[in-house]
């Protein structure tokens, strides 16, 4: 009887102990769940827009982490008033880019980033040009040319596409505030919807005649956290 009581007491003690969750266990969430949404803006575009008489625009950037991969999206507006040697070119439009960045700083506990990425860009815009032009051809005598040409041309509902390879840094500067840069190698621009005017400049891309173009953003971000729980980094396993 005494041994049975002792055994029951032991089992009860064990069960009672089992009810208590160990307080020193670190709760780690699924590493593929996003930890937050980072929203920011390109400072260079804002400064350029304020200093230049030929450009007005802004751009917002956002990304969201899925482990070491980041879904990235940019949206912006862009308007150019560009004097050319024999007239003036204008355009105005909106653009967005979306793609993925891959973070190569796997073991950083703050999740600072050195990344490589890829983007697809799309712009919807309109443009126009007004110019005067005289055909200068040795074979053209005054009797055969049509004099000075004055043309005013407009394209509406243009759509531009391009692709980008990106690289850059994202550094946590204080709590939810981040800064970084993105360098872009843009390529394969195309424009549909052109009429007589061949588009000179694509919002978000730049000069359409350049099949390879460079871009650079200096960005400030605010991160909206989705959770206070820690997500694991690579060295947490070790």
């Amino acid at each position, binding site marked *: 009887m005494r041994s049975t009581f002792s055994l029951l007491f032991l089992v009860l003690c064990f069960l009672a102990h089992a009810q208590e969750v160990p307080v020193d266990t670190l709760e780690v969430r699924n590493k593929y769940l996003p930890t937050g949404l980072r929203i920011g803006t390109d400072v260079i575009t804002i400064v350029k827009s304020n200093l230049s008489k030929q450009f007005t625009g802004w751009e917002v950037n956002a990304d969201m982490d899925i482990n070491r991969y980041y879904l990235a999206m940019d949206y912006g507006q862009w308007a150019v008033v560009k004097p050319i040697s024999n*007239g003036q070119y204008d355009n105005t439009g909106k653009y967005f880019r979306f793609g993925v960045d891959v973070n190569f700083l796997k073991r950083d506990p703050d999740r600072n980033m050195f990344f490589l990425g890829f983007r697809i860009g799309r712009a919807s815009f309109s443009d126009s*040009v007004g110019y005067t032009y005289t055909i200068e051809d040795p074979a053209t005598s005054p*009797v*055969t040319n049509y004099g000075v040409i004055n043309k005013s041309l407009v394209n509406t509902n243009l759509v531009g596409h391009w692709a980008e390879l990106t690289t850059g840094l994202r550094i946590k500067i204080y709590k939810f505030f981040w800064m970084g840069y993105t*360098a872009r190698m843009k390529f394969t621009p195309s424009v549909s919807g052109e009429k*007589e*005017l*061949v588009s000179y400049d694509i919002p978000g891309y730049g000069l359409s005649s350049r099949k390879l173009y*460079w871009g650079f953003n200096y960005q400030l971000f605010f991160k909206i956290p989705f959770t206070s729980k820690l997500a694991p980094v690579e060295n947490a396993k070790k």
Partner: protein
Amino acid sequence: MRILFIACIALVALVCGSCFEKGDCIINNTNLVKFKFINTLDKTVHPVKFASIEVVGSSIVLYNNNVEVSLIALPVDPYKTEASFILKYADTRNDTINVTYRNQTTIPSSDCGAFVYQDQVTLVENPMDTSLIQGSTLTKVITTQLLGNAEANFEVYF
């Protein structure tokens, strides 16, 4: 640390690369559509004597001094997309050439400015003539873009 160094190098390369943005300013357009007359047998030039060539819808009259030419350059209007030319031969016969084309304005760079060029130049058959130009047997398209350095847009074989 090594990754940050690579990132800095990549940044410098990109910034330096972006400096080379001067566009080429080679403008080689013309508003002249060129016809070259060729002898079918020996492929040499075939001179033709014109009394005049009139540009329909304008006051332009060309080749009106009865000289023999083996190449004619006829101006198209950059404001229109078609042009007609009346060829009056020295022997009093006439021909009409009709062409259609597309005007394109391009801006190579802000320093070069904008200019218009013509492409997709097409000869339109004249239903009144059995051949495009009387006596010719074949018209060969050389290039459909009007370029200053192009020797001819069409070769007409006699």
